[in-house]
């Protein structure tokens, strides 16, 4: 079974937008992969005019929020850096235990890469320039800039969501059959760790578990 990989379009977001954006994207993907009986829950974003859908599983929501918190902590330590979050779906396969591997292995059949570019806009520059008396109505221009930027982010987020929908529609054969009593496939959210070397180790671990090199396109 091939592992289908989807690289989502990069989003340029500000720090305070991370949580909402990630929640929207992650829940949308998981909803498409929660093929068990669900009662969908509509959630309206506060920052954008977008409504996304959750499975309605509280446990899932908690796990996703935890991962987002970890990611935000990482972003605070590594400001102005491009980052990538990987949402992977796998199957658990039992395997002959050996020295290097566990009894079970994870067969990743799908991976989603969420690319974020967290920026910090110099919004406080105008407030600091008290000595400058030639500021011509900074309030209005800042508001306009903010709103236009917000519109751009919203449009980009909408594009990303449609990208997810198209991917889900186009590739269906690789999805494993639905297990009885299981709402959503096992998943894993990987965020950048504090060191690049640790991040590399995560990649190697994944390779060992999956048995084939991860396709990064």
């Amino acid at each position, binding site marked *: 079974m091939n592992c289908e990989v989807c690289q989502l379009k990069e989003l340029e977001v500000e720090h305070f937008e991370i949580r909402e954006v990630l929640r929207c994207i992650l829940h*949308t993907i998981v*909803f*498409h992969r*929660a*093929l*068990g*009986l*669900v*009662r*969908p*829950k*509509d959630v*309206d974003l506060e920052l954008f*005019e*977008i*409504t*996304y*859908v959750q*499975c*309605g*599983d*509280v*446990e899932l929501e908690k796990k996703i929020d935890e991962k987002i918190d970890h990611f935000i902590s990482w972003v605070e330590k590594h400001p102005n850096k491009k980052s990538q979050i990987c949402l992977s779906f796998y199957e658990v396969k039992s395997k002959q235990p050996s020295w290097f591997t566990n009894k079970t292995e994870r067969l990743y059949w799908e991976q989603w890469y969420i690319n974020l570019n967290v920026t910090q806009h110099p919004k406080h520059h105008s407030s600091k320039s008290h000595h400058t008396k030639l500021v011509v109505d900074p309030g209005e221009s800042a508001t306009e800039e903010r709103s236009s930027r917000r519109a751009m982010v919203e449009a980009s987020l*909408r594009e990303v*969501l*449609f990208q*997810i*929908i198209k991917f*889900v*529609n*186009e590739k*269906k054969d690789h*999805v494993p*059959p*639905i297990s009885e*009593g*299981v*709402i959503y496939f096992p998943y894993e959210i990987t965020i950048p760790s504090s060191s690049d070397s640790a991040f590399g180790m995560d990649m190697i671990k994944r390779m060992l578990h999956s048995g084939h090199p991860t396709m990064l396109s």
Partner: protein
Amino acid sequence: MTSTHTNSHTEAAKMEQVITEFFYKSLLIILESRSSYVSSRNYSGEQTVSSPSSSSSSSSSVRPRDKWFNLALRECPSALENLDLCRRSNFEPVVVDVILEQKPLDWGPASFSPTSDLVRNLSSKNKNSYFWNSDQQDESGSEMKCEKIIERWFVQHESRKGRDCNSGNRRSSCNNLSALYKKLILMLRSLYVTVRLLPAYNIFRDLNSSGLICSFKLVPRVSSFVEPLTRKEEVDMQRFWFTPVDTSCGRLCLSVLYHSSISDMSSESSTPMSPQFIPDYVGSPLADPLRRFPSLPVSHGSPSSLPFSRRHSWSYDHYKASPPLVSFSPSPTHSESNALVSNPSSLGLPPMSLPPHPPETSLAHKRNTNFDEYCPSPNFSASPSPSPSPSLPIYIPRTHLSKALLRSESAPVNIAAPKLANTPALSGKQNLPPCPPLKITRAGTSRTDNIRVPAETDATIEKIFSFGKEDCWKYSGVKAFSNSSPRISCSRSSSRSLQDDFDYSEFPCPFDVEDGEMMDPGSRKSQDAAVGALVRLLKKAPPLRQNVSLNFSEASRPEILSNSIPKQSQILEAVTVEYAAAPNIASFRLVASKTTTDALEELRGYKVMKNLLLSEGGKAYTSNVASAAEHSSTSKGT
């Protein structure tokens, strides 16, 4: 053989059932996010925790139909109505048109009925109009209804010709069915997400959540056959295809044509129905120069210093430029702007936009004929009611308007009564303009409609009214009362309406408003100035006491001094005290006033009565004395 045939038949039946249920489910997903009813959006908010362990136990709370494709949704009435459409064996295509209706004038409840039933077909002649089919009119031509197809959904099963759908062994059929089911689940998941990302969903969400009266509504229409959209309509629309899913005898296709610019359109005309400034309303100084009447002397210098001045619309040219008062229009509380309309004309708001007058004045404009009964007093602006400062721009809800109207109804004040002194029949109550320092509280008096002044002002008033007509109006302070009463009002509780006695033809009332005519803003003075003028006038007027007291002195003093009947003297004393007790304007006690003539006549009557009683009393006394003397002599004699 038989079992194979049976199995294949079973598989075919299952396939057919799956396809039918797919039709229904897709219809349900579309309609429940486009019809204004309790959709799964709200239903999911009530849901309990759904965990893998409870998924099996949750089946009892989920209706059988909801389980299809593992997507639990609440039943949608409009989808149920079209269930038959989905159950057709030949799988005819189902087309769902989502129509955005704008009804500018019709605010009846039928406009907002949350049904999917609908809209008559667009006539071909109107299809060429851009976006809104605004030319479309009812057959009766009674109302304009604009509607536009903002989405068109296609759900269809394309049959594969030339193949036997029932062929294949059981195992492959089973695999096919499970695979098909899985793929349809995925397709419906993406459909569920997609309907919420399209622009029409924002409109649906805002209409559902706000609960405000809007002229827009979303009306989905389900049919099998529809007229194709015109090229012009399609140009502005985008298409989104869901990847078709192969079935045993064809493929299931799902696609949508949608307007991407619907949000722009709705946002243009969808700002909240907040109070708006109407600069050129009827009666504004800008639109309609009003008559100016001879102005009263203004006691105060600057208009801005007047404590009770109100920013009436007609006073703008007099005072500093200030923005017009807000219009009276329903103001939504919802902050979302997508579904609301800003432009009242496009909204076609009902004629609720009144000129931005204060309550009583705006109503005056509307209800000219009824203003005979209303007489806003000069104290109206400083009414006892806890109304806000009258100088603020006013957004007047209907309830406040009605309350204001009631206030004006409850205490009319007669500002001036030219014929008052000459009306002999007015022996009862009589209304006279109150003086400003008076604290005339309508609630405080038992007869709230009567304003009484001491009798010594009668002569003053008589003199007032004996002035020329113009002078009368000049000094009566009528114009000073900057209220919109077009008429001089009368006490409603008086037995006789002063209005009936007035001959309005003789006195050109400055407040007489002809149709559509408003008063000259320049003629209105502040209430304080007018009241001050009246006070000065009253002060200058000769006191009534001179006449009355003289009359009394003529008629009553000897009687007072020599009155041996307590009751009569008390009456006279009371009258005297009453009339003598009110030189101070500030301490006026409002009593029933009479004309001087009537008072004199009454006094004469009392005099006669007194003389009679005295004479009778004297005789009685004499007889008593005589009898007493007689008795004593008799007793002594015995």
